[in-house]
Structures are given as C-alpha cells and as structure tokens.
C-alpha cells in the first residue's frame, strides 16, 4: 500500500509538470520591417537601349519606337561621358510637349504623395524614411525646385541605371 501511494504521487508530479501551461508567442503589435537592403536586388546595369526605353516610358507613358531607340542609342554611344550624353538626351525629352510630368503646384500640394509616386515610378521601390526626410526638407527649403528638376535628378541617378 505504501509503495502504491509512493508511485501514485510520482505519477501525479510527472503529470503536473508536463501538463503545466505553455507561454504564448509574444506579439508586440508593430509593423514588420524589411531588414535587408532596398537596393540589394538591383545588381545588373541597364544597357543603353534598356535605359532609354525605360526612361522614355517613364516620361511619356508610352513606348519608344524601335527606329528612335536605335537613333538615340547611337547618339549616346557617340559621346564618351555617358552622364553628359544622358543629360543632353533627357533635356531634349523635356523640351517635348508630350512629356508627362506632374505640375509644380500638384507636387507642392502633396509632397509626400509626389515623392512616394516618384520613387515607385523611377526606382520601383518604396521611399525610405531617411529619403523622405531629406526630400521634404530640401523641397520645402527650395520652393523654386520644379517637378521637372526632381524627375531629371531621378532619371540621371545611378540607381536608375541598375535593375
């Protein structure tokens, strides 16, 4: 009888230990953040043809004809400093009546939205908070900076040369 009681107590202790409550996973109720680099996947440089096709589509919201693609590619190849060549070609685009750029007043009306859409349009990614802060500060401090100038800076940027 004594032995029986001893075994029963041990069994009860074991059952008590294994049936004790488990702690739930903690939920801190915050948004999940992407810890990897935003640009990490852009590791291939665009060819001249790719660059021109994409920037044309971004600025005119229509595709560049194949003839014009060949002609503009030849123009860029004919000038060694590619940044100079791109700047000349893009400023030529900007002189066109068909280029589609938000007006300056529309940009100033909602800078946050303009910046978010510009980052998605050119860089195909979300703006980071650091980038947002820089641009908001810069654009607020420089009321003469136009949407065209912002678009030019994105189209000439190095990140835009990669995909």
């Amino acid at each position: 009888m004594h032995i029986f009681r001893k075994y029963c107590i041990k069994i009860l202790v074991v059952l008590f230990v294994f049936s004790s409550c488990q702690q739930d996973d903690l939920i801190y109720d915050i948004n999940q953040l992407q810890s990897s680099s935003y640009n990490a996947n852009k590791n291939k440089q665009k060819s001249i043809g790719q660059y021109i096709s994409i920037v044309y589509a971004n600025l005119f919201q229509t595709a560049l004809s194949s003839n014009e693609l060949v002609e503009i590619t030849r123009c860029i190849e004919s000038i060694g400093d590619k940044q100079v060549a791109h700047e000349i070609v893009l400023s030529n685009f900007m002189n066109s009546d068909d280029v589609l750029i938000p007006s300056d007043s529309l940009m100033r009306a909602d800078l946050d939205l303009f910046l978010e859409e510009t980052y998605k349009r050119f860089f195909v990614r979300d703006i980071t908070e650091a980038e947002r802060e820089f641009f908001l500060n810069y654009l607020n401090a420089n009321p003469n900076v136009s949407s065209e100038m912002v678009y030019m800076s994105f189209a000439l940027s190095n990140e835009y040369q990669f995909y």
Partner: protein
Amino acid sequence: MKRRSFIKKASLASAAITAPFILPSGRLFAASGMRMSDHVVLVAFAGGVRQQESILQRYLDDSQSYPSAGNILYNLFNGAPPTDKIVYGTKNIIDGDTPIPQILSQTLENQGTTFREVNASAVGHYAGVNAMITGNYMYTQGLRNKPTMPTIFEYLRRHQGEKATKTWFIGNGIGNSIPLLDYSTHSGYGASYGANFLAPIITFGSDGEKHLKNAKIYHPEDELDPMYKMKYFLDNVWYSQGKQLPNIGNTEEEKAEIKSFVKDMFEKTEAGTIAHPPIADNGDLRTIGYACEVMKRFKPTLTVIYLSNVDGCHSNFTGYLESLHRADHGVGHIWDYIQNNIPQMANNTTLMVVPEHGRNLDSNNIEDGNAFSGYDHSDGNSRRIFSTIVGPGIDSNLSIGGENNQIGDIVNITPTIAEILGCKNDVVGSGLLASNKSLFDLI
C-alpha cells in the same frame, strides 16, 4: 641688372619645374621628364593602308597591273603625283578626275621624321588601334571588350595629372568597337583616367539633329545646381548599397563646357562654319573638321583621331584611293589649322600619322566600277606600315628604314607619345608595355 633678372627668372623657372603637385591619384608628383611639346595629335589611318599606294607611291602600278605610278599623299610625302588614270580626286568631268590641291607648302616628310617601314603586328581594325594606343599586342582579349592594358590616355592622366577634357579620342563612327578605346579595364588605371570620346558625324549628324540638338539648356545655378544636389543625394544612398558606374572624371565645369560645345557645334553646323578641310566630302574629313573644333576649344594635351574610310578597299579600290587621298588632305588641314588657328598649340604640337595596319599583297576577286581589284588584310604585307612624326624637337627631313629594312613597331607609338609628353619613365615604369622603346630610341 641683367644678371639679377636672369637669376630671378631662373629661380622661378626651377621652382616651377621641380615643385611637386598633387595628382588625382593622390600621390605627390614631380614631372618625370621634359616635354618636347605640350600637345600631341595622333592620326590613325585606320582600316588598312598598303605601303604600295601610300609611302611607296606606286598608285596603280603595283596593285592593278596598270603602268601609272605616283604620289597621292602629297601633304605627307615628297613625290610627284600620277599623271595617268586619275580616279582619286573630286569630280570635274568624271568622278575623281581632279586631284585635291596640296594644302601644305612643305610636306610633313620634309618637316619631320618618317619611319618608312614599321611592323604593324596586328591586322584587325580594333586590334590595330588597340596596339597603337596601349603599346601592347592584343593577344589576350577579344573584340567588343575594352582594352585589358592601360591606354596612353590613362597613363597621361594618371602620371601627368591631366584633366579629362585634355585627352580626346575622336572617331569616324561607333563601329568596330571604337568607342571602347577611351579607357581600359586595368585595375590600376581604368575609367577614372579615361579620355573623352566623340564620334562627331553621329553626334552632329542626322541622329543628333533629331535627338540632341533641341536639348534644353538649364541655368547653372538656378536649375542644374539643385538638380545635381538631389542626384548626389540619390547616388550617395545608392553607393552605400549598390554598384558604382564607370566615370571618366569630367568635373562639373568640364561637363558644362562639353554641353556648351555640343550646343555651339549644332549652331556652327547649321551655319556652315565648322572648321572642315577645304574638301569635306566624306566622313573622315567631316570628322577632322569637328576634331579641329575640339582642339580649338579644349586645347587637348593628347588628341587621337581615328579615320576609317579607307576600309572600303575590300570591295572598292577606287574608293580606297579616294579615301587615302582625302585622309592626306585632312592631315594637311589639321597641321595647317593648328599652326594658323590655334595659337596655344601652334609650334607646340607634335603630329603623328600612323596606319593601324596594312593590306594584302595579292588582291581578292572583287572588282569595282573601274575594274580595279580589292584588297583584304590578312597576310604578311598587312603587317607593313609607316609612321611620320613632325613637331618641336623632331628631326626634319629624316628618313628611317626602308622597304627591306624594317625599323619600329606599332607598340613603339605609346612610349613615343609618352616621351614627347614627358612621362616615359612613368609609363615604362608601369611594367605594362610590350616594348619600352620609343621610335626615337630606334633612330
């Protein structure tokens, strides 16, 4: 008083020569040698030029079994032009019947030193110019790739601290991988020491008229400055995570000057005031006109001009003779223009003329409209070229070597330019040349 003045000037000159200055590479530097001149212009007769029709002056005698010999490069070489079956000039009654008048009163052969028989080594278009401006045989790289060995532009910019706009590579077009020759992929040199490339007949031709001419000119302070500030912010963010782009290192001022130059050239093209040679009826001569404009604007330390119209010899021997005659006309114009229209370069420029390679001894089976046979480039005759050098400190009327006495190699061109511009020790010291000898070392 004179003695005091002399001592003062001599001290200042010594200080100027020996004072070290800082190069883009960051190291302190003192010039390694005296310059023979402050500017070098290298004209590459690309596309393959046979010795027989050029320096040997045999015209149709050697190539078409027609007894008419003579000199069709009379700005370059001494010698009377042919008198029979003239096909290389401009049209008076029939195509080519009127030779282009000589520009120079003294031939370059009279004014300088000519190496009459030089080894070209490579016989391909890209390989030939590549060997010429890298001082290396193109054994270990393919076409459509940048040079693996540093170009003379990079040596010059790294070791002499030249700005990007002081080195120009001007090509007649963008074919044959020519735009790739502005800098190499060598880890010690590369893009940041590259030259400014320009193919003006495209930039200012019909394509450029359509897509570059109407470029907006942004205000430097009000528009460009904020634009660049935003771009630099974006680039800094990118550099922290992404790859860098090749950049030949034009400063903002240099870039602005290039854009201004492009705008001005469109205006001058429209007004018909480009510094073209008197006859400018092919791409080579129009390229030379724009090259003269580049030299007048930027006064480059090194300008390489690549002419390629003679390449038509494969199937059009008449066209080849026309192009050869025009290339000579263009070289005469370059020399004349420098001496008379660019005071900063007059009497302070060395001109070198070198074909990138020759052409075959025997013709192919393709005949042109005059029933002249064409010539390709693949045999031993294709490895025969000449080289003419004229400028300050170069012996005049000196002829080196001959048809059966080859002296010099195309890889001697890079050390020759380095010697003229006072950086031969640095260039040779890189240990990257196939030959450490300049053409002067072979005299």
